[in-house]
């Protein structure tokens, strides 16, 4: 246990170093990979100081939002859980506009990561879970990209990224946690260890993650960006608070009075939100809880065409580059008839 009597700053440092030389318990360990974002809460505050809090209508267009709110090199994050409640319209538009050199928060990213890698948008990534599509298998193209060493990676875990967003949402620069200690996941992270000043326990210090941009798909929102989400929320409420610029796509715009009638349902408040776009079926081909299930056939096709890079390019041309917007893509893949089928699957209606 380190006991420090603080007489002045200098003396505290001297004593601490003296202890660390002889006491392995007191040594601070550091993950050796790169920290892609700045955890400084005062820099974040300086940004948030100038972020609008006026409750004005924020209805926008997908194309404009992606053009104006994301620049090459930004660090972005996507809400939901890979292929569940994802803002596909934004993800596709980022690819369609050829955004480059993006940093990415890969917290159980599955289909979203797969699309970004196909579009060659990402060159650095905080990894909790990438490449895989859970029970569906691994993305051949994402594997090729990562195994060729062209993308800079820093290892984390799902909880680590959740808690890094939580630290940012709290407006602090790190949060102490009890995961990742002692592993190569820690060694290849950018976390550090820290000793609790009360108990002497060793913690991992998770640096706050303030993304430049986040897109989140929700069930309902008013025109000001007050949002409702049903089903598992993953880390989205913290993500909305932690990110500098936030775009919401929503299954439905609802009247502002509706928000005021049941305020306890509001999970993301308007002041977090910069733009809002109504995109029914907006999580397609992903699952949207209580609305429609994932399109497993379409997700299988992705995995199939990815085996051959040329076939993938043709597929991307057909599905993303060659269409004007999300609704052309939706129609290309079965349109409203397909959506009705996916709704039946979601509702467990056996209509085979």
């Amino acid at each position, binding site marked *: 246990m380190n006991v420090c009597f603080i007489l002045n700053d200098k003396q505290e440092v001297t004593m601490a170093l003296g202890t660390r030389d002889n006491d392995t318990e007191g040594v601070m360990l550091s993950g050796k990979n790169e920290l892609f974002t700045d955890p400084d809460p005062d820099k974040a505050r300086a940004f948030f100081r100038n972020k609008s809090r006026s409750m004005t209508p924020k209805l926008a267009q997908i194309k404009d939002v992606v053009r104006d709110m994301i620049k090459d090199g930004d660090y972005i994050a996507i809400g939901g859980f*890979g292929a*569940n409640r994802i803002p596909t319209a934004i993800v596709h538009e980022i690819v369609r506009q050829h955004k480059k050199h993006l940093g990415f928060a890969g917290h*159980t990213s599955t289909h979203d990561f797969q699309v970004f890698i196909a579009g060659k948008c990402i060159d650095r990534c905080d990894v909790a879970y990438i490449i*895989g599509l859970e029970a569906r298998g691994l993305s051949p193209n994402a594997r090729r990209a990562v195994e060729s060493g062209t993308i800079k990676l820093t290892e984390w*875990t799902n909880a680590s990224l959740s808690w890094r967003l939580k630290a940012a949402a709290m407006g602090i620069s790190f949060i102490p946690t009890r995961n990742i*200690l*002692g*592993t190569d996941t820690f060694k290849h992270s950018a976390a550090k260890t820290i000793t609790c000043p009360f108990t002497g326990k060793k913690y991992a210090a998770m640096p706050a993650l303030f993304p430049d941009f986040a897109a989140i798909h929700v069930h309902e929102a008013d025109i000001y960006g007050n949002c409702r989400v049903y089903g598992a929320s993953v880390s989205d409420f913290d993500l909305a608070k932690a990110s500098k610029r936030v775009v919401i796509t929503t299954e439905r715009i609802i009247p502002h009075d509706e928000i005021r009638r049941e305020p306890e349902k509001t999970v993301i408040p308007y002041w977090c939100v910069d733009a809002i776009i109504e995109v029914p079926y907006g999580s397609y081909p992903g699952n949207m809880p209580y609305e429609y299930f994932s399109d497993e056939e379409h997700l299988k096709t992705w995995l199939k065409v990815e085996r051959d890079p040329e076939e993938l390019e043709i597929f991307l041309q057909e599905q993303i580059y060659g269409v004007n917007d999300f609704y052309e893509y939706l129609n290309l893949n079965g349109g409203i008839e397909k959506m009705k089928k996916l709704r039946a699957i979601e509702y467990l209606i056996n209509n085979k």
Partner: protein
Amino acid sequence: MDYNAMELMICVAARNLEDGATVVVGTGAPCAAAMLSQKIYSPNLCILFEAGGVAPILPTMPISVGDSRTFHKAIMASSMPEVMETCQRGMVDYTFLGGAQIDMYGNINSTMIGDDYQKPKVRFPGSGGANDLASLCWRTMMMTVQDARRFTDKLDFITSPGYLKGGRSRYDAGLPEGTGPYRIITNMAVMGFDDETKWMMVLSINPGYSRQDVQDNCGFELKWAKKIDDTKPPADEELRILREEVDPHHYIIGR
């Protein structure tokens, strides 16, 4: 009744989940084991999913640990921090992990194969929630087919912590006291870990396999419990419920 290795592993895992316990599972075999346990042994087993689902009544096997099924008729559709913090507070008893490699201390690799981190020979998804659950749940279990490459004394990457270097090293690293690997359930045997050294130790051998088979298909020297039991094969009732109710399409148990 005849059964395959996957069915055996799921049945053995299910018996290890007692009523009233909490367990975080992923998709696939672990989810099947938890569902089976709920239907036969532990009706009040609370199943959690890392994206936020708490105690769902699973209508079908989930494809994703965040899809609609994971909070179907649940008591809570919460969040990832909610579930992970419940683990960190010491309220979650069990979890199941998978991986490409495991060593004698139960450390698990699900990140990469190769010796160059920047250019791995094979890259896997990485931790996801595995490291978190292995760090924070009381008891970690694994179901896996056993061979000498998978059970190795040298992991290419420690994704999720077992007992690290054995002894007290796990707790000295700062991981919560009393947590760690509990059972490794393979097609050949069921292993635990020696109390002192934390080295993997065979507890029982599955029907049709010998001591020799178990050791030959392991890349490190196994310890053996004083008394080695025979693993009880799946009962007819277990198999029936597993095949008809838990995994009726045989996605996990195969044809």
